[in-house]
């Protein structure tokens, strides 16, 4: 039997298989190199990168919740220049496209990030984070306002030739509207979903557990919300979707693909199982074999098509 086709095209980003990493859950790559062969990933999406280095949020940054976690990292990162000079050379050694997740406080930030990363050799696409719940300026504020979201994407598109993936916030009344807005602004693909806004209170200290009070909820707990959003958006907007939110296994990934995702990102699962990306990939392959699916693209949106 000929091997089934796993390759997908995510709005211009060519991936040898649909499995990538969720930003912020895989560091800059080397952290998981002892556990998996990074060459086998469809792409690597790295931690959110900003123009200037960022320290991130103080205090407790993670708390476990039922089948999920809350995080309030706050975009700690060494800044784009450091990323380009130190992290990128390492990542270029691998036969895996590198997607850089970018976040800014202002439109100018996004423009500058897009410029520098496009000029740098070795970046395959930009994932534009307009949905981070853990920073005061920018972040989710952009992502919950339809007009602003589109503005950010338009700005990035003006300053790059790379495929632009718009990463949206699920914390909105009408995600389809925002997806349509960024589609019109020129996004090449959508990344769905970022974390849900949540919090936890320590009943003994009677204070919020997280240093930043609120945080982003991720992990299997949010999977039903992610699947619903992808299902809705995929039917309404003609852009390929990078699906994420609680994917732990190949079967979960298939659920996202059937809902309408062209590719999937594995986030929180890496913390639970450092081989999660490979288990997801192998699970997808097994499913395709079991049902004789010759091309993964046949499954995209198959639950409604």
């Amino acid at each position, binding site marked *: 039997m000929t091997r089934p086709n796993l390759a997908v095209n995510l709005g211009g980003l060519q991936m040898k298989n649909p499995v990538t990493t969720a930003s*912020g*859950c*895989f*560091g*800059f*790559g*080397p*952290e*998981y190199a*002892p*556990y998996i062969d990074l060459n086998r990933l469809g792409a690597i999406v790295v*931690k959110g990168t900003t123009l*200037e*280095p*960022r*320290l*991130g949020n103080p205090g*407790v*940054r*993670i*708390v*476990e919740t*039922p*089948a*999920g*976690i809350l*995080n309030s*990292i706050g975009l*700690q*990162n*060494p*800044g784009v220049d*450091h990323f380009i000079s*130190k*992290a990128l050379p*390492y990542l270029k050694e691998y036969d895996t496209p590198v997607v850089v997740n970018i976040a800014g406080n202002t439109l100018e930030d996004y423009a500058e990030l897009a410029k520098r990363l496009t000029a740098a050799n070795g970046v395959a696409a930009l994932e534009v984070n307009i949905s981070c719940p853990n920073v005061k300026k920018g972040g989710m504020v952009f992502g919950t306002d339809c007009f602003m979201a589109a503005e950010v994407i338009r700005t990035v598109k003006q300053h790059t030739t790379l495929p632009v993936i718009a990463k949206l916030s699920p914390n909105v009344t009408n995600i389809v509207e925002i997806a349509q807005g960024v589609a019109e602004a020129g996004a090449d693909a959508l990344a769905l979903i970022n974390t849900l806004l949540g919090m936890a209170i320590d009943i003994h200290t009677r204070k919020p557990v997280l240093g930043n009070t609120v945080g982003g909820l991720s*992990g*299997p*707990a949010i999977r039903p919300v992610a699947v619903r959003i992808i299902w809705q958006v995929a039917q309404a907007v003609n852009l390929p979707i990078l699906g994420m939110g609680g994917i*732990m296994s190949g079967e979960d990934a298939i659920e996202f693909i059937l809902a309408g995702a062209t590719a999937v990102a594995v986030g*929180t699962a*890496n*913390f*639970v*199982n*450092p*081989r999660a990306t490979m288990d997801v990939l192998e699970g997808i392959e097994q499913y395709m074999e079991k049902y004789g699916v010759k091309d993964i693209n046949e499954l995209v949106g198959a639950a409604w098509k």
Partner: protein
Amino acid sequence: MPVREMAKVVSNSPVKPGYYLMELDAPKVTEEAKPGQFVHIRVGRTMDPLLRRPISLYDIDKEKGILSLLYVVVGRGTRMLSEIEAGAELDIMGPLGNGFWLPDRATRCLVVGGGIGVAPLLPLIGMLDQAGLEQKILYGFRNADAVVGIDVVQEKGWPLAIATDDGSVGHRGFVTDLVKQAITDFKPDYYYVCGPEVMIRNVVWLMKEANIPGQVSLEARMGCGVGACLACTCKTRKRTGGQQSVTGGQLSVAGHEQNFDYSLVCTHGPVFGAGEVIFDD
């Protein structure tokens, strides 16, 4: 290089109420393990609890490929761990973290532990002993019921003094009382400390006063355990100039305006040079 290993539980039994000793047949992790490192353990199989739990290496038997863990039940993760029976498989990642290192020049080491924080000190003590360094061991516990991790130390005849808050064993009072005394009596030129944060802070302060360098082993809530999620931070003095390379496992944050960094307990630590760490009050 750390690995993920399905370790076989050789034994897992209480050493006293609430405190457990677990032996794991984990040849791969053991092979590279060093004092002060830890393993990251999946205590269940379902999505709740979701995260792994970090536990230090209490004993490293390189010959047999056996790791021992000493842990106290504080929540449901450690409770689930305590219910695992001999013969079961346990999903662990390790060895993680940097571990303790030998002092450059020092010869007389003070080893200070508090509560369950004594666990990672046992392999350290063995290492110091083997390196031929003088040492004095000071452990503090709440009371007699909380005294753990001293059997091997006593067996080997390593010099140990104990303090308990209620005086039920050893000195009545804090371990810092013993530390003060040891600074004058034992005249250490280096130290190691692990335990509750407030104890660490006090010891570091005393030693700083006395101008003695050392190492501290910290704890923080962890996600990945491998430097990928940036959850497990502690405040450290800003490093000037050089950055750790990306292939070292993580990037530290430089170039920002604050006079501190957030370092990662899981990979930059859990052991830090005592002078590096900034303790907030």
